[in-house]
């Protein structure tokens, strides 16, 4: 009995200890990540990439720096995740220390948490394996780098420092301000699995780029060439976890942040490369400070009524409205868009309408219920480049006309009514006449 008491007391203590941990992670109401684990293969990265880390800290992130082979590494304790985000700047690490491995990182992303992964001029099999889980294929040749003889930075003699400006056109991923200066990149190439719908190239190489060893002659055509080479890619999983995969760790370094850039063949000389703006905006997206949508109430009712009916009749006129909010990094703001659509769906959509918005977060439309009866669903399936996916549905049955809801006294039937009544009237008159005629 004493043992049981001790056990329950210790369980209570442990859960008390866990409570503060729980309140400091991201939640449905506050989707921005808080605690981020940063794995480095060399602690000097803390200073060589200090600008990037300090911009993260200034936005309120709690960074925990650890060496990649630290034996006390753990992402979870007692079944709860300790971190909301993970940054792996350890391109040459072959094995993580502690409880981390490729599978635990895959589980981390599966739980809805975010990841920034970067390779560099070398990428270990471990890093390649994690990238492969996310649909990203690094060049198999471990000595290959991205070379571009037309799109390199003039300060580089080797043509391996790429000045890339083929950015994805997305305000939500890269911010509203256009990145004017090219982004400097030196590292390995990767390509995306063409059948994977969840990955996206954020920074692509130019058509003259190729992935090869710069110090040896090519004996066979390279596997990766042209715009098929992705320099930085992102993936948004179906559970809205976001992953950024970069082929260059130097892209995030202070040296390239501060460096000026002039692209070969272009007269424009920029004082500062686009790297800092690119890395900052991308980190805002990956840690859910932007592009995270939430749906409020989904309301439908007949025109003229306010309550939601339990069942609709065919050919009823109904009104549908839904509230969508967007996380601004600090608060929920109304979402404004003109491409949100609702489906009235039973096995296939019978009605698909674009919702109009009052710009305050409410989206509404109205339509007539189809003349097919059954159990329908109001479905909002919203997928937009860079935004979290919305998948809402509400079920509602639809019944046919009751026997007394049909049309009555149709004009076409007047002759038949006439026939009926004249017969009755004739009989009535006849009964009088026949009996009392003399």
């Amino acid at each position, binding site marked *: 009995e004493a043992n049981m008491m001790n056990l329950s007391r210790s369980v209570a203590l442990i859960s008390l200890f866990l409570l503060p941990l729980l309140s400091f992670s991201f939640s449905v109401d506050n989707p921005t990540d808080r605690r981020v684990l940063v794995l480095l293969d060399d602690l000097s990265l803390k200073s060589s990439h200090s600008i990037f880390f300090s911009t993260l800290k200034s936005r309120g992130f709690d960074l925990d720096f650890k060496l990649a082979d630290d034996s006390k590494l753990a992402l979870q304790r007692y079944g709860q995740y300790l971190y909301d985000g993970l940054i792996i700047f350890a391109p040459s690490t072959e094995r993580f220390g502690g409880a981390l491995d490729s599978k635990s990182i895959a589980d981390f992303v599966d739980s809805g948490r975010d990841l920034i992964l970067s390779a560099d001029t070398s990428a270990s099999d471990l890093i390649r394996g994690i990238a492969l889980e996310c649909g990203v294929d690094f060049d198999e040749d471990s000595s290959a780098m991205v070379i571009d003889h037309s799109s390199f930075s003039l300060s580089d*003699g080797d043509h391996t420092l790429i000045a890339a400006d083929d950015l994805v056109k997305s305000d939500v991923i890269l911010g509203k301000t256009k990145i004017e200066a090219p982004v400097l990149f030196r590292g390995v190439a990767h390509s995306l699995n*063409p059948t994977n719908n969840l990955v996206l190239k954020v920074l692509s190489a130019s058509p003259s780029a190729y992935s090869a060893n710069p110090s040896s002659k090519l004996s*066979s055509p390279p596997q990766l060439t042209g715009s098929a080479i992705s320099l930085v890619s992102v993936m948004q999983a179906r559970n809205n976890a976001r992953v950024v995969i970069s082929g260059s760790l130097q892209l995030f370094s202070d040296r390239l942040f501060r460096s000026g850039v002039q692209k070969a063949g272009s007269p424009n000389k920029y004082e500062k490369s686009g790297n800092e703006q690119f890395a900052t905006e991308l980190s805002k997206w990956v840690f859910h400070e932007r592009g995270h949508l939430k749906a409020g109430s989904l309301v439908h009712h007949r025109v003229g009524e306010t309550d939601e009916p339990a069942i609709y009749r065919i050919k009823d006129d109904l009104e549908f409205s839904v509230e969508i909010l967007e996380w601004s990094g600090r608060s929920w703001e109304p979402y404004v868009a003109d*491409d949100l659509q609702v489906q009235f769906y039973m096995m296939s959509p019978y009605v698909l309408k674009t919702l109009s918005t009052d710009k305050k977060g409410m989206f509404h439309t109205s339509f007539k219920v189809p003349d097919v009866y059954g159990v329908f669903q109001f479905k909002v399936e919203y997928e937009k*480049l860079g935004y979290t996916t919305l998948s809402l549905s509400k079920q509602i049955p639809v019944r046919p006309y009751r026997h007394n809801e049909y049309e009555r006294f149709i*004009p076409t039937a007047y002759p038949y*009514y006439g026939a009926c009544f004249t017969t009755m009237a004739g009989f009535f008159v006849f009964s009088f006449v026949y009996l009392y005629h003399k």
Partner: protein
Amino acid sequence: MLAVKVSTVLGSKTAALNVKLAQALSSGSKGSVINNQELKFDADSATYFLDSFPENFDVGKYTFVFEILLDESAQEKLYITEAQTKIPIAATGAISIENAEIAVLDGDVGSVESQKKLDLTKDGAVSLSANHLQKLRLSYQLNTPLGHVFKPHQAFLKLKHESQVEHIFLVKTSGKKSELVLDFLGLVEKLYYLSGKYEIQLTIGDASMENSLLSNIGHIELDLPERPEKAAQPPVQPTDPYSRYGPKAEISHIFRVPEKLPAKQLSLVFLGLIVLPFIAFLIGLTRLGVNIKSFPSSVGAATSALLFHGGIGAVLNIKALSLLGVFLSFVGHSTLSHLASASNKLKSA
């Protein structure tokens, strides 16, 4: 001009030194182009420089070997870290491209079927056609400013099919010129038996080449045999991400059109036609001179007669049918029997 800065380990200025470029080893050839060239010191910028290179210093990759010696006038307490410092240098220059041409050759004989000269500094609009029995030949000459043959690191010919499937071939340089011959007979399987329009793109580049280029030469219409069943399928191409996420086309339900009914006027006309016989009946009755004289005069009989006819009217109204039916049978019997007895009386009397 080559400028070299020498500093102490901590980065500060040094005393007078003697900096010499001992060798400039080219990656391609043996032997050094420059030997023991002393660099001059420029006090204003504190650099050692070499302002002219020998005439045979060509474009390409070199390893410069520097030797630093202490000047005689220097003090004894200075030490030099390395005897020789090797630095990789890429000497860049504009490479000339001459005699660029593309041709379609006939089968084994190798005779030229069509040949076009190319200007690789800009995109062209060459239009060729070939079948699987022919060959495609691309040739050009790359020369350094000093006239030597230049072998670039990157020399790709890319054939891109309408379906976005791409194939890359290396253009090899041997002897005086660079040439690529594509024998379509042997390439049919590699090209996945895809016939159609292929865009031709040539990319030439090197770290020492200042004028690396990418030229869209034109296109070639390839006629390849049909794909046999066991041949490999061309790889899946990625979908355009911008079109992946667009809004879907709107669907509005087409309601079942009710059967077409005749016009209202037509129905009214027929109503009139139906009522006509009834009116004719009434007119006919009056013409016949019907009357209702033998309506019973006594109160009891009269009321039951009225109720009888009222009951018929009510029945015709089809309400409370069953009760009426019962009621009607009683009342009817009484009236009719009364009538029958009345007529019996008449008959007997």
